[in-house]
């Protein structure tokens, strides 16, 4: 066992990378749930985004196009969910589970001709001076743009929910849709937009796995990241910064345990592999013991009766 082989700077840097997919999917789902909708289809939207982004990147040769198409793919699948739950008033839990199964199937159908291909690599941002700083440069300033996009999105969502009018309306819809309707707000329209935003974020998260993290296409490659993102939102008490914290914690323990495995620590591999899930959930459960609670209309079907 040789712990000195673990380089702390590289460890922290890969933490940010490992955290990004669930961070993106999580912040999207947070917006959806704050609007009062429970979309359990995150996994399906992620994997659809992963294959859409992968295909677009192979065809056009540009990862930027890839990410745009991934967002569109995720949002399209989410729109399907919105049609079912907001217009056909279907049960949200069942629709979300169906969406996951559908997304997994659809993506493996679409991806049949893409197995084994290698996408062009996404350039890393090279910031003059900052990237060359010892340690800090490696940890913070040597990543692709999506990593920063994820963090910026958290800040944006936080500020929008807290300070903007649209954020206030979104929270109001998630809190009491009947009252929001009585005041004349378009509950269904707001929710559809929120659901599509969530889908786009999940799609980006999925594409990050297939284009940067791995990067190649294999069936079912999101491997439960969507479920982690869902759990993250709940245990983060629907607060944006806690989603970021949880994602980093999860990413951090993931890369740490991989490093420990490589270093040959005398802990059974199975325990190391389960550690990110356990540690993330334990920490967030402890933090969610404050008095914050779920949006009051979460998962309830809205039907304008009058």
């Amino acid at each position: 066992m040789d712990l000195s082989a673990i380089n702390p700077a590289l460890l922290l840097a890969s933490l940010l990378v490992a955290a990004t997919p669930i961070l993106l999917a999580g912040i999207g789902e947070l917006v959806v749930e704050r609007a009062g909708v429970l979309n359990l289809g995150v996994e399906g939207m992620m994997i659809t985004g992963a294959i859409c982004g992968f295909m677009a990147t192979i065809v056009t040769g540009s990862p930027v196009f890839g990410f745009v198409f991934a967002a569109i793919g995720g949002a399209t699948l989410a729109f399907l969910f919105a049609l079912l739950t907001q217009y056909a008033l279907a049960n949200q839990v069942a629709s979300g589970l169906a969406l996951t199964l559908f997304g997994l199937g659809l993506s493996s159908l679409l991806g049949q001709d893409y197995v084994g291909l290698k996408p062009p690599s996404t350039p890393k941002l090279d910031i003059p001076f900052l990237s060359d700083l010892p340690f800090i440069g490696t940890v913070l300033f040597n990543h692709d743009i999506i990593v920063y996009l994820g963090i910026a999105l958290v800040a944006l969502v936080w500020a929008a929910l807290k300070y903007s009018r649209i954020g206030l309306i979104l929270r109001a819809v998630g809190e009491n849709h009947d009252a929001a309707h009585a005041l004349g707000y378009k509950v269904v329209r707001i929710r559809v937009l929120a659901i599509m935003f969530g889908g786009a974020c999940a799609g980006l998260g999925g594409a990050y796995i297939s284009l940067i993290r791995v990067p190649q296409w294999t069936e079912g490659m999101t491997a439960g990241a969507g479920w982690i993102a869902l759990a993250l939102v709940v245990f983060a008490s629907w607060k944006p910064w806690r989603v970021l914290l949880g994602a980093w914690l999860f990413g951090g323990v993931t890369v740490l345990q991989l490093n420990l495995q490589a270093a040959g620590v005398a802990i059974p591999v199975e325990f190391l592999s389960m550690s990110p899930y356990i540690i993330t959930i334990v920490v967030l459960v402890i933090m969610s013991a404050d008095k914050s609670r779920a949006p009051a209309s979460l998962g309830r079907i809205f039907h304008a009766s009058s």
Partner: protein
Amino acid sequence: MTGTLLKIDGLTKAYPGVVANSDVSFEIKTGEVHALLGENGAGKSTLVKMIYGLVKPDSGTMMMNGAPFAPPEPRAARASGVAMVFQHFSLFDALNVAENIALGMEHPPALRDLAEKIRTVSEDYGLPLDPYRTVGDLSAGERQRVEIIRCLLQDPKLLIMDEPTSVLTPQEVEILFETLRKLTAEGVAILYISHKLEEIRALCDAATILRLGKNVGTCVPAETSARDMAELMVGTELQTPNSAGAELGDVVLDISGLSMPSPSAFGTALRNIHLRLRAGEVLGIGGVAGNGQDELLLALSGEIRTEQNAVKLKGEAIGQLAPNARRSRGLLTAPEERLGHAAAPNMSLTENALLTGNVRKGLSNRGFLKWAKTRSFAEEIIEKFDVRTPGPDNAARSLSGGNLQKFVIGREVLQDPDVLVVNQPTWGVDASAAASIRQAILDLAANGTAVIVISQDLDELMEVADNFAALNEGRLTETRPTQGLTIDEIGLMMGGAHGMEVAHAKA
């Protein structure tokens, strides 16, 4: 000020199966308080929803200040100066006062300026409010203030108030009336919906009475007796319940030092409640909603266990017993919420009869249900309590509020309880059904059952109860005989005006 503000002409609105409004016409003058009277289901709510733009009329026209007025949505109605205070508050518990008010405005200023404005306006009208408090923590009266301030900030010409006093203490009602009078003096017209006739006589300049969707009469409330108005509303003569006045027996229910945290985040904990109830006694428990009524019922029904000795039934400590064990010992309860708590909405009346009647009526045998016996029990309830339904196979949801309430109360009464606890027995029930429910409670007491009636309707409590106590922030006041109790004393028992002052007449 005698100009006509809003002229309503021949409004008709039909829903599948019911005509909610049929050819309704009346006028509201500038600066008057106009009452809209009627029983539940008379079409009051539909009418105001049309004025507020939530519902489109099938036919008929409205004129506002002489110009045609047909708001396609609430936003348009608000822009024309119509503001509405809802019956079921349209507030968001998790948001603070300022955020709630901002949501009701078209172009709210920055939150800090808005907070300042809320402070000044609320103090001008004698309804002080802290803009940064979370609405879920406010009392019902304070929550109503939020709604009123939200309307006032839009400079309304017409303020619609739907049952505004049902959640207030008498003192708070007085303060509200002061505020409303101040508003009318400034030229605002108020459309005031209520079925509390004495209040209407005290406050309103004109009244329009609806029955089954039709305008059946207009009157000047100050010159019409409450009884005449009530009979116009109902369309028949009213029966007043009367008590046989039985002798009180031994103490059957003894509550001492009952304390219990509330199961819900915005609920009220019970604090050290003492209470003794004797056979044949009807105890009325008043208080503003949300002061521990629901929690008290939960503690008595056994849905929440308390300390074993805190609740004693005929000398036996039952604080830790489950609901069915309490039922078998003779303590029955009928909670407030008809659909979802007292009855399962999608189950038939037979199945609902089984849910609480199983133990005392012996409706099952070693886990197998006796459907025939259950069905005849349900039919007995339907017959004795005049529940209007095609039969016991209908779902509870399909009954109107009043009929389901008669069923729910009847189900407990027919089980011959020793102690019956009812919460809001006539809430949202029309006058004739309410009278028959009250009569059933009195008959039960005359046969030696001890009854606790928890209600926010003080007139009801005065009518049925021998003794009165009030819940205030989870504490129960001393029990006092109803005879000779004045409305002022009751108000003080209910906690007075919760730290408010009467609007100082500056205008």
